[in-house]
């Protein structure tokens, strides 16, 4: 390893230890990530062909631009950055570990010269007294000192924030932990969806990209689904499902309300409110008035179904609008004559009961009630890696705060006999934020100087 010709392994190792590699890879990751935000990801082949034409499509397909975050080259860049930060950390960690665990207690001349901050003080006090005062002041103003005597000199060493040296390694480690969490989720987790009609239950969900449904091992029932709106607007306030979990024939969770931002979890599987829609045809309550006699009858019907009328004809409701023009809920319907001829469609407004009277014709219709059955659409997820990801995030925040906001500050003091009193040598450094430490050091050495005068 010490020969002039570096070995192959050493070349590779140096390559992955390089900080330039870090910077270049980070910039490459930033630049290439843009592609995926400009080209919509994971759409159908047909959409892409329409948008880009045959030639560009082929090129982009070859470069895996259509699912680029899973492409070999993007994952490759992520691998490079992982190897890079691992190699850098392994290379630097042992030295830092030694600095922290085996601090230099006996500094020599060369060490003092290497420090960014230094001072030399003289005191009329004998070394023992000077040492006593220095230890007390240092302890009060900075941190308790370790005292080492050697060759007739006494050395004090005090430090603060040594742990902050590890911040950067914790941050690097956290990125690997997040990746590990994502990989665990990809291997042992799944994402699926399910639609449950109100009043029914299901025990299977559909995983994305799979043809066969997945059995949950328990069943989920939807008692109710509802959308509420802000007063006087059609801005939705809340989508809400009432769900029950039935496991082994027993209802283990009852009437659990789930809304967006408040999912339901059971046995590691989480259900999120995600969509909703109409399930089957709506049911209607109508009042039909025979105009000639004034006789009325009330009927229940399903939307689209032909309902017989007293004269042998029938009517059917074919459409519904929650808000027709500005008149509120309305249905579209038509009447068929007894010989089966299809009449013209007309509108009946729910909020204006007498409206249909003006139309003329044999019957006048009033809409009494319109009830639509709905299904609730749920995202279903199992992700055993998510806690690992959160742990990684926590480490990342803690690590970067430690790395950026704190620094390892060290102060050395050497006391020896000299002249009629003592000669005191001071030195200090900080591994980050040196300007602030320089100010502190100057103040401290002045204070120590004053102590030694008296």
């Amino acid at each position: 390893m010490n020969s002039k010709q570096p070995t192959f392994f050493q070349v590779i190792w140096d390559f992955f230890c390089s900080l330039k590699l870090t910077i270049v890879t980070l910039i490459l990751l930033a630049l290439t990530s843009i592609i995926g935000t400009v080209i919509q990801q994971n759409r159908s082949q047909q959409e892409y062909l329409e948008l880009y034409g045959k030639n560009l499509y082929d090129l982009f397909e070859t470069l895996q631009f259509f699912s680029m975050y899973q492409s070999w080259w993007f994952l490759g860049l992520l691998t490079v950055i992982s190897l890079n930060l691992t190699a850098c950390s392994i290379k630097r960690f042992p030295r830092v570990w030694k600095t922290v665990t085996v601090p230099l207690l006996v500094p020599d001349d060369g060490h003092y010269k290497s420090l960014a901050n230094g001072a030399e003080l003289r005191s009329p006090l004998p070394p023992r007294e000077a040492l006593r005062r220095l230890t007390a002041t240092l302890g009060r103003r900075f941190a308790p000192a370790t005292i080492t005597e050697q060759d007739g000199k006494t050395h004090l060493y005090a430090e603060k924030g040594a742990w902050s040296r590890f911040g950067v390694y914790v941050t690097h480690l956290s990125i690997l932990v997040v990746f590990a969490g994502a990989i665990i989720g990809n291997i042992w987790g799944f994402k699926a969806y399910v639609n449950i009609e109100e009043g029914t239950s299901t025990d299977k969900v559909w995983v994305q990209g799979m043809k066969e449904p997945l059995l949950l091992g328990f069943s989920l029932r939807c008692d109710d689904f509802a959308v509420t709106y802000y007063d006087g607007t059609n801005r939705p306030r809340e989508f809400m499902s009432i769900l029950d979990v039935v496991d082994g024939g027993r209802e283990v969770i009852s009437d659990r309300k789930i809304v967006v931002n408040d999912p339901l979890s059971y046995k590691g599987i989480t259900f999120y409110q995600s969509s909703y829609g109409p399930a089957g045809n709506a049911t209607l309550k109508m009042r039909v008035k025979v105009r000639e006699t004034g006789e009325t009858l009330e009927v229940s019907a399903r939307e689209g179904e032909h309902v017989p009328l007293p004269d042998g004809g029938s009517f059917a409701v074919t459409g519904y609008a929650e808000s027709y023009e500005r008149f509120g809920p309305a249905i579209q319907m038509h009447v068929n004559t007894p010989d089966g001829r299809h009449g013209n469609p007309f509108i009946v407004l729910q909020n204006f009961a007498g409206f249909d009277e003006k139309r003329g014709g044999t019957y006048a219709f009033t809409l009494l009630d319109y009830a639509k059955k709905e299904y609730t659409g749920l995202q279903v997820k199992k992700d055993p890696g998510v806690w690992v990801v959160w742990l990684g995030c926590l480490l990342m925040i803690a690590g970067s705060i430690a790395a950026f906001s704190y620094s390892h500050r060290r102060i050395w003091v050497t006391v020896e006999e000299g002249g009629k009193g003592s000669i005191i040598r001071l030195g200090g450094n900080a591994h980050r934020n040196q300007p602030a430490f320089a100010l502190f050091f100057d103040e401290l050495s002045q204070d120590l100087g004053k102590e030694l005068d008296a």
Partner: protein
Amino acid sequence: MTSSQLFNITTIAYFAAMILFLSYLVIRSPRVGLIATLIAWAGFAANSGAILARWMEARALGFDQAPLSNLYESIVFFAWSILLFYLLIDLRYRQRALGAFVLPFAFFGMVWAQFGLNDAIEPLVPALQSNWLTYHVITCFLGYAGFAVACGASIMYLLVAGKDGQKPSGIRALFPDSRILDDINYKAIMIGFPLLTLGIVTGAAWANYAWGTYWSWDPKETWSLIVWFIYAAFLHARFTRGWVGRRAAYLSIAGFAATIFCYLGVNLVLSGLHSYGG
């Protein structure tokens, strides 16, 4: 006073402070610098009051929501964050000239919000009804504000450090020393970066809670990661010879351009989860 009156006062104060900071560059009178700073503080107070007033106004309408829910509200909060960050830097460094390069971001933000954006208070759609909204927006914008201050310092750095070894002349003589600008650039990013990280994490936690996916490579998410990559590169550049000084300043400016695109461009140009912001 209503929030909109207070926002007017804010905009006027930021404008006055910006003009005074620019005049300070020319006149070089410390008194002008001091007045500019005091007006910036007054504008910041008005901005804070306006955000509180808007909060109260939303409550009076029966909506229990922090004023961070649409583009208008986020822009005025961004202006507030920039001022907060700038004023803290000013307390520490007392480099008045920096104001001339930071205040414009806050001022133009306020002008755009007031003249170009819908300021109606509207209730939140279900996906946004979460405390995560507050944590996510506050952390992100404080991070963005750090990057704005760093960008201002970088522009100044490039102006000052134009020619090697040559003493800057004219207005540039009043600029802070290039080493101080470089330091401000670094410090602002050093504080902004963990805040952005926290912003991304709170966003991921929220997405996981609302949709069951902490990361979906949605354009907004991806752009926040792009910004993160650039500033991560910047911080590592600090330790390598050749990637400091001018290159670091360019990286900082590129980072802020990406931040602005992440914040606005994605909402206005690309589609995705955050498009409601427009």
